[in-house]
Structure formats: structure tokens, C-alpha cells
């Protein structure tokens, strides 16, 4: 019963965040980079969440910032899933040394914290918001590749694989036409969990200031900007902080739920 309540809460929160991001231009009222009132205004009346250190509308920044965070994390996750699934398919479709390389290589890369891996990518490509998306996507790829490979491997023991093999299907054909569709539910729940990690990774990198000079708001950089005003305007940290935390926890909850949907373990 309690788990159902938490799932409902997670879905409700994600619904709010997504509609806030989609409807930002309608809900915001003012542009996120526009100075609307005096700086560091308390949240009372208008603007609803007060103003930031430059006098910009915090409510508008939170909406547009969510848009940036959610979409960029989604793009990073898409990159992770694409690379990881391709590696897993190659590994299981060709087998032998390729499989060993994917397994060993992803294992070795996993030993490096994905934050450091992402930092290296930023170092090579130079700071910038687009770079961060690539960095987060690449940083999470080894882990996803490893888990996707095991998900495909688990299907290998099923009778229909032996049947397809007996009918003359090649390894790669079996991997693409049989293993992949059947492993899809596992991959989907893995992708959901990785989305939560991507949000954490992206906001961490923007928090570190690695997005460079960006004019559009983003939750992680908003949290970093609020750090200097914790004493006089703590709400500037509360709003983006609670948004990041709530979204990460909600996506994790969704991932747990998706993992349990699978008929077999």
C-alpha cells in the first residue's frame, strides 16, 4: 500500500515537472533572463518565488531551468542507451573476443568514477553546456553497456534462442531479432535508472560551473549561484535543490517500479 502511495507521488511530481517545463512560456509570465524587480526579494506575492541575486524572476528561472535540466539529461541518457545497447549487441551478436573486450573494457572503465570520466571528456572538448551532455552520456555508458550485456545474456538460456539457432539463425540475427526485443523491459528499467543518474551528473557538472557562461537558467547552475547567498536568501537554494532531489528520487522510484514489472528476474 505504502509503495503505491510513493509511486503515485513520484508520478505526480514528474507530471508537475514535465508540464512546468512544457508550459514554461505560459506559466512563467516573464523571461528568465529579464530583471523584473530588486535583487534577493523574498518569496511573497509577486514574483511568486522572489528574485535571484540579479533581480530576475525565480519562478520563471525554475521553470525554464527545469526545461534545460530535464531535456539535457534525457539527451545524455539517449546517448548512454545508444552506445551501451550497441556495445551489448556487438558483444552478444559476435561473441568471442568482442564479447570479452566489451565485458573487460566496460569493467575497467567502471572502476573510474563516472564523474571523473565526465570531467576528462569536458577537459578534452572544452567547457560548455553541449559538452556536458556528451560528457554525462559517455560517462554513464560503460555501466549501461555492462548491464545491457548481462540483460541480453540472460535471454540466451531461453528455449526460443535454441529454437532460432536450430532453424539456422546466425548469432547477430538472434541478438537483434530475439534477444533485444525480449530484453527490452530490462533495458527500459535500466534506462530509467540511468536517467536519474544523468540528472545527478549533469546538475553536478553545471554546479561546478563547467557549462561556461550560459545565459539560460539550469537547476545545477542555479544551485551554485545560490551558494553565495545561503545566509541572506536561502530559498534561492531550496527551490532548485528540492527540484533536483524530487526529480531524481521520483525517477528512481519509477525505475524500481519498472524493474518489478518484468515477469522474470
Amino acid at each position, binding site marked *: 500500500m505504502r509503495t503505491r502511495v510513493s509511486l503515485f507521488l513520484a508520478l505526480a511530481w514528474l507530471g508537475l515537472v514535465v508540464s512546468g517545463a512544457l508550459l514554461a512560456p505560459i506559466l512563467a509570465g516573464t523571461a528568465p533572463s529579464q530583471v523584473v524587480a530588486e535583487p534577493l526579494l523574498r518569496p511573497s506575492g509577486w514574483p511568486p518565488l522572489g528574485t535571484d541575486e540579479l533581480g530576475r524572476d525565480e519562478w520563471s528561472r525554475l521553470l525554464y531551468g527545469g526545461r534545460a535540466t530535464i531535456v539535457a539529461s534525457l539527451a545524455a541518457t539517449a546517448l548512454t542507451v545508444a552506445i551501451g545497447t550497441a556495445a551489448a549487441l556487438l558483444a552478444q551478436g559476435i561473441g568471442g573476443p568482442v564479447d570479452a573486450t566489451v565485458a573487460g573494457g566496460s569493467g575497467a572503465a567502471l572502476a573510474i568514477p563516472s564523474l571523473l570520466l565526465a*570531467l*576528462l571528456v569536458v577537459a578534452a572538448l572544452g567547457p560548455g553546456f553541449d559538452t556536458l551532455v556528451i560528457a554525462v552520456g559517455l560517462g554513464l555508458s560503460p555501466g549501461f553497456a555492462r548491464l545491457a550485456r548481462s540483460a541480453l545474456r540472460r535471454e540466451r538460456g531461453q528455449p526460443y534462442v535454441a529454437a532460432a539457432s536450430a532453424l539456422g539463425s546466425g548469432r547477430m540475427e538472434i541478438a537483434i531479432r530475439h534477444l533485444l526485443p525480449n530484453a527490452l523491459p530490462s533495458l527500459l528499467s535500466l534506462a530509467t535508472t540511468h536517467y536519474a543518474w544523468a540528472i545527478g551528473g549533469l546538475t553536478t557538472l553545471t554546479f561546478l*560551473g563547467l557549462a561556461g557562461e550560459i545565459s539560460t537558467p539550469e537547476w545545477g547552475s542555479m544551485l551554485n549561484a545560490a551558494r553565495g547567498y545561503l545566509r541572506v536568501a536561502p530559498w534561492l537554494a531550496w527551490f532548485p535543490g528540492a527540484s533536483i532531489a524530487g526529480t531524481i528520487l521520483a525517477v528512481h522510484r519509477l525505475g524500481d517500479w519498472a524493474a518489478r514489472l518484468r515477469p522474470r528476474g
Partner: protein
Amino acid sequence: MVPPAPRPAAGALSVFARRLGLALVTLWAAVTLSFFGLRLAAGDPLAGLLSQGLASPQQAAELRERLGLADPLLTQYARYLTGLLQGDLGRSLYTQRPVGEVIAEQAGSTVELAIAGLGMTILIGAILGLVAGSRRSTALGSGASAAAGLATALPVALTGVLILWAAMAVGRAAPAFLPLTRSDSLLLPALALGIASAGALARILEGGLQENLEAPFVLAARARGVRRGLPLIWHALRPALPLAISFLSLEAALLLGGTVVTETVFARPGLGRLLVNSILDGDFPVVQGLVLVAAAVYTLTHVAADMAAAFADPRLRDEA
């Protein structure tokens, strides 16, 4: 896995030699990858200097000549490697100071933070894990379990800012606590850094307790008269300890990643801040030096952890 061939008593020392050889290869790979990765992907190392107007094209050309950046890449690589063997990590593009000196200057603060963070991880992780594992199906136990879950899920940046804000709020009510929020105080940064890994450690201990509290050997211990409570928990915990210890030895290397964020949250100087600033400036020699340091710390902790395991459990010696 091929079963290990019977060998005349591979002693711990030969395992050590093999491990050390592997560590050196890993270090060389990290150096090579970072050298070519940074040079090939990013192009002109002096682009940052030029675009910020810190050097005129003429000065840049002169600097390029002096730093040897005009030579072919392979020549530069060979020079970098020979320099490394002599303990020379190159010079910063910005300050022209030796990279080794710059890193050594900042290392102390980060090492201090990492050690304190590891201590916090053990302290908080053990408390949460023991409470969650031994008081299952009570409000306290599930609360500890949920706290461990939260600690693992939330990014360090978030918990760090939360801790800093809470400390400031407490400090306003009771000014005696205010010195804690100063940037040279170690307690809060260590707490923020430690909490992230504490959640995972708590999970391991909780899982171990859950698995073993009903196990036959624990029942036997109870029958022998071992008292409930801590003595019995210790019995149940022991099988989970090797896993917890190997987790912690890996975590020691991960802590270095966490320090990057913690140092930003609490405005502490250190290697993490140096790395972020060097990335932002495009100061390649410094980034490369830090990659080497991270790789060295990482491989050394692994060798040490493997050695400890091999000395403790002779069965592991043949598999290394």
C-alpha cells in the same frame, strides 16, 4: 575462467610483483590516453590564452616555441614521458610554474578532506547499516534504511549545500556553532563527502545482517549462550566484513571524485578545485598531471587492497 594450473607455491611476493607490473602498465595507459586525448580533441593548447586576450599572437608563438608545442606530437609525447621518468610533470600554461609544485601545494588539503570523509563514511555507514539491519520492521530500522537510500541517490552537491545551509541556520540561532561554516573547517565538508558513500556501505552491512541473523551459525551461537544485541550482531556481521572492506578500499579512490564537488560547495582549496579551474582555463599540463595523480592513487589502492586480500586469504594468491 580457466582453472589455475598447479604452480609451485606462488608466494605473496610474486603476486605483488605481477600486480605492480600491471599497475605500471595502467599508469602508462592513463598518461598516454590523457596526453593524446587532450591534444587531439581540443586542438591548440594556447587557444584559451589567446581568446582571453592574455597573450598576443606574437607572445603565443614565442611561448609555443619555448614550451615545445610547435614540435610534432610524437616528439612532444616522448619528451613528456622522459620528463615524467625524471619526475618532471611539465609546466602550467598560465603561471609557467612546474605542475608538480602546483599539485603538491594543493594536495594536503584534499588528502585531509578525503581521509576525514572516509572516516565519516565508516562512522555513518556503520551506524545506519547496523540500525537498519538489526532493527528491521521497526520505524527506526526502516528510517535508517530510507536514510541510506537517500544518501546514495542524492548528488554530493545537493547534500553539501543542504548541510551548509543547515549549519548556517543553526549558527544563527547558536553563534557558538558558526565557526563550523568557515571554509577552513573540516567537519562539514567531511560530512558531505562521507554521506554519499555511507549509504552504500550501510546497504552492504544491512544486507549482510539480514542474510545472517537467521543463519545456522548465528542460531548455534545463540544456543551456546552468546547474548542477543551487540555480541550476536557482531557474529552475524563478520561474513559481510570482507565485502565491506573491499568496498571501502575501492571507495577511497572514488572519494577523490567526491572531493571535486565538496571543495566547490565549501569553497575549499584543493586538487578538485584545481582540476575544475584548469579545465575551465584549458591548462592542459595541469589537467594531465592531475589525471596521472588520480590514476596513481587509484592503482595503488587497488594493489594495496589485493595485497591485503592475498595475505589474508592464501586461496586468492593463485588467481591474481
